[in-house]
Each structure stands twice: as C-alpha cells, then as structure tokens.
C-alpha cells in the first residue's frame, strides 16, 4: 500500500474491525450469561415447588400441573429425581415422597451450583472482551494519531525545511528520491518548480554575462578608433600640421569636445558593466579617511579651478574606513565633480562626515548649486538621467556618473541619496557601514 490515504484507511478498517469483533464476542457472552441466569431462575422455581410438594394435598389437577412442570426440566438427572417425587406424590406415600423430594432438592442444588460456576466463567469472558474492545479502540486512536503525525505532519515539516534549504542553499536542493505517495507528488511538483527556477536563473545569468561581455567588447572596440580620432583632431587643432582658419578651428574644437564626451561615455559604460557583472570583487582595506578624501580632491583640483569653485574637506585625522579605495574614489569623484559642474562661480563644495543614528558613517557632498526638484530626486540615480536647469540646460556628462556611484556605494554595503532645496543647494550623501576611530593615529 503506497498511498498515505490507503494506509490510513487500512489502519482505520483494522482497528474498527478488531474492536467490533471483540465487542461482538462480549455481547455474545453477555447473552450466554442471560441464558444461564434464566436456567437458574427456572431451577429456583423447581426448588420452590419441591419444597411445597410435601405439604400439598393430593388433587388430580395438581398432579397435572406438576407434570407440566416436569416437561420444562431439561436435565436428565433432575427430571428423574423430580419424576420420582411426582410418582411418590401420585402414590400418596408421604415417607417415599419426603425421600424423593430430598433427593430432588440435592439434584437442584448441584445443578444450581453448576450454573453459578458457568455464569462466573462467562461473566469473566464478558469483562475480558468488553475491555479488549475499548482497549483496541483507544490504542488504535493513539496509533492513528501517531501514524498521521509520522506520515503527514513530520513529512510536511521535512518538506518545508527542504524548501527553506532551497532558498538558502542558492537554489540547488531537489528531492533526489521522491516517495511514491501523495507527499511524493508534492516533492515531484516542488522538483519541477525548483528546476524551473534554476533554469530561469541560469538563463538570466547567461543573459547577464552575455550583456556584460557584449558591453565590454563593444567598449573596447570603440576605444581604439576613438583614440585615433581624438589624436588626429588634437594634432589638427594644435596647428602643427598646418594653420587652420578660424571657422575650421572652431569646428575641429567642437569635434574634439564631443569626442572627449564620447570617450568618457565609453569608459563609464565599461566601468558600469564591470561593476554590475560583479566580476571585480572588492579589495577592502582600512584607510585613513583624510588621506582618501585628499587624494580624491587632488584629482579634481583642475576641474574646480576651471569652474572657479572652492573645495573644502572636513578634517577627521582619527577616522578610518574599510573600503576599496580605488572604487570608492570613483564614487566620491563622481559626486564631487557633479557638485562642481552645478556650482555657481565662486561657490564652495564641501565634504562633511557625520554619524547616522543607525551607527553608519554618512559622507555628504554639499554644493550651492540650483538644487534638484523633488520629482527628479530618484530619477537622477538611474542610468542616462540628468538634471537640467534654466541656467544649465544641459550639463555635458554621460548620465552615468550617479548610477556608477550608486552601484559602487551599494557594493560597499551602503546607501546613497540626495537632500536638496531648490535655489539653495543639494547634499548628495552616501553611507559606509564599516568605519572606526583610530586613537593611535591621533596620538601619532
């Protein structure tokens, strides 16, 4: 019997059957007890008649009645004794009658005793079988509950544990040997579902790596000709291969600027593809925040000078962060260069550090730019989205800077966001979960 339903049905049938059998035997024995008791009553009646017979005066009618009484007696020994007494009564011989009655009473007593013994034995049987019937029923109930627990609930718990394993164990668990019952059906269904999930994941992984590969090859193949175009344009613009008239020079300068932008876009795309494919694991080390910040700002000094923007850094000599310097530097560079681009002439871009209530470190890049309207605040972190303003209809960038910063910060386990007031400025912030204050460094 392979199905759980079948097993439970068989179990129930066996228990009820055995219990009913025992109950029937108990009932049967009880009927026997009643039969024996009826015989005992009849013997008592015979005894009463015998006791009265000594005193009875003789009548034909009485003899006829006594003869009827004789017919009821089913036991040979007693019938012979009763017949003797009856004969003595009919012969009207009191002495003989007295003797015959005594002998008949002895026979009755013996018979009564025998019946009592029989009743005791049969009553014993009634108790035994009734007890057995109840016992089987109670034990069967317990057994059924145990069977239901073992066959269904324990298996269900096992199943749900395995399903959790599947979630935790990176989608690999399957039931290698599904049982041949209803739970097995569930396991097989689960296997199919799991296989479907695994297939879908594989497809997604393949698609993702194909996308990354495509991006990386495309970017690489694009870079080589871009370098030649850029080189040619800059040689032409420098005038070393021949002086150009003003219009030609202006056109060449435009071409050069756009080429620069295209190269930046290609570089950003390549970076984003690398980060998103997760092919480059972080190489985190404890780094002095001040040094890291100074290094980042040094790289942006030229841009800041050109835009006439001052860069300020909050000095925290004892602060250390656990980061991959190269990667996070790119994130911070993107935020600061954005802030510079949107700052008014003579403005200041400030980098400050504070501590969140949750314990994380918050790094803020604060500018005095035009601010970002609320509807744009989430959009700007998406790829190819840029904020525009009246003064700055389109700041030339790739639209990938913030998306890259977001991906890099999230790789470090942090979050990124912006607080902004239109007309006052914007604060781009990101959080870093791993930081410490190194007192030794302060002492040194």
């Amino acid at each position, binding site marked *: 019997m392979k199905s759980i339903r079948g097993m439970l049905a068989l179990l129930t049938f066996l228990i009820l059957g055995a219990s009913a059998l025992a109950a029937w035997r108990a009932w049967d024995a009880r009927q026997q007890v009643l039969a024996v008791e009826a015989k005992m009553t009849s013997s008592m009646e015979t005894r009463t008649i015998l006791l009265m017979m000594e005193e009875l005066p003789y009548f034909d009618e009485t003899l006829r009645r006594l003869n009827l009484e004789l017919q009821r007696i089913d036991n040979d020994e007693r019938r012979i004794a009763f017949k003797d007494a009856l004969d003595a009564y009919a012969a009207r011989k009191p002495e003989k009658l007295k003797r015959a009655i005594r002998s008949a009473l002895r026979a009755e007593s013996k018979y009564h005793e025998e019946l009592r013994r029989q009743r005791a034995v049969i009553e014993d049987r009634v108790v035994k079988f009734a007890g057995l019937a109840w016992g089987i029923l109670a034990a069967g109930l317990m057994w059924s509950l145990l069977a239901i627990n073992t066959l269904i609930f324990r298996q269900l718990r096992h199943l749900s544990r395995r399903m959790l394993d599947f979630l935790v164990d990176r989608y690999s668990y399957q039931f290698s040997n599904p049982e041949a019952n209803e739970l097995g059906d569930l396991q097989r269904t689960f296997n199919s579902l799991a296989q479907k999930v695994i297939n879908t994941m594989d497809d997604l992984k393949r698609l993702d790596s194909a996308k990354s590969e495509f991006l990386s090859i495309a970017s690489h193949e694009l870079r080589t*000709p871009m370098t*030649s175009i850029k080189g040619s344009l800059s040689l032409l613009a420098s005038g070393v*291969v021949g002086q150009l008239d003003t219009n030609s020079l202006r056109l060449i300068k435009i071409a050069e600027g756009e080429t620069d932008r295209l190269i930046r876009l290609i570089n950003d795309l390549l970076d984003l593809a690398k980060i998103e494919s997760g092919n480059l694991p972080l190489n985190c080390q404890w780094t002095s925040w001040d040094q890291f910040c100074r290094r980042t700002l040094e790289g942006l000094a030229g841009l800041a000078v050109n835009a006439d923007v001052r860069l300020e850094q909050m000095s925290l000599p004892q602060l250390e962060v656990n980061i991959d310097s190269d990667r996070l530097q790119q994130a911070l560079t993107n935020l600061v260069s954005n802030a510079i681009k949107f700052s008014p002439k003579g403005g200041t871009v400030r980098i400050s550090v504070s501590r969140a209530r949750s314990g994380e470190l918050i790094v803020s890049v604060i500018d005095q730019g035009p601010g970002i309207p609320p509807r744009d605040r989430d959009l700007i972190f998406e790829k190819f989205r840029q904020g525009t303003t009246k003064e700055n209809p389109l700041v030339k960038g790739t639209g990938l800077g913030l998306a890259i910063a977001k991906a890099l910060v999230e790789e470090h386990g942090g979050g990124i966001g912006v607080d902004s007031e239109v007309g006052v400025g914007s604060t781009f912030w990101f959080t870093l979960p791993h930081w410490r204050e190194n007192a030794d460094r302060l002492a040194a």
Partner: protein
Amino acid sequence: MQILLAEDDQAVSLITSLSLEKIGGHQVTVVEDGEAAVDLATRQAFDLIILDGMMPKKSGLQAAQEIRGAGLITTPIIFLSAKSDERDIREFLELGVGYIAKPFEPTQICSHIDEILARTGFKT
C-alpha cells in the same frame, strides 16, 4: 633625434610620427611590425626606439629582447602600452627606459619622452 617607431596601427603610427616630427622636430622612421624593427635597429643607428607592445610577427617585448640581445645596441627604448598589457609593465621597465600608456595625448608625447629621457639620464 633619429627615432625608430614600430607600430602596427596605421592611424596611431601616423599621429605619433606627425607629433614627433612637427612638434618635436625629430626624424622618424616608421615600421609596421616587431621583426622589421629588430632588422632596422641592428643595421642603422637611432637615438630612440619606440615599440608598440602588441604587434604582429614579434611583440614589442620580443623585439626589445632581440635588439638588446645583440649586446651592442644601448639605444633607449620606450614602449607604447595598451591597458591590457598591464602585466608586462615590469618587463617594459627592465628592457626599456619607460612606457607611454595608450591612449595618449599626441601634442604632449614629445614632452613626455623628454621627461622620461631626462629622468633616466639619456638627456639633460
């Protein structure tokens, strides 16, 4: 200066040689692969040899090894390296006096070369 430039990409070699000639005022001889570079370097005297890292027939490194292998030629060698050649940089610095990473700004290549040569004592 007499410069030997080995570079297989015609666009890059044209831009580089134009920069060297027009801005630096050098005489540039261009070859397209490593083998030709070795051949010419052993037959003719140059003041500087510029080798691209990746070239057909012989790579920049192989060419440099053969040129140095003759024992007589001590002409300074500068490599042009693409980003993918990062592993070879140590060898570039052993066999040559320096390397210039691609993509480079053509108008600045002459000052870049002067800087490398001055640093390594080939030019004051």
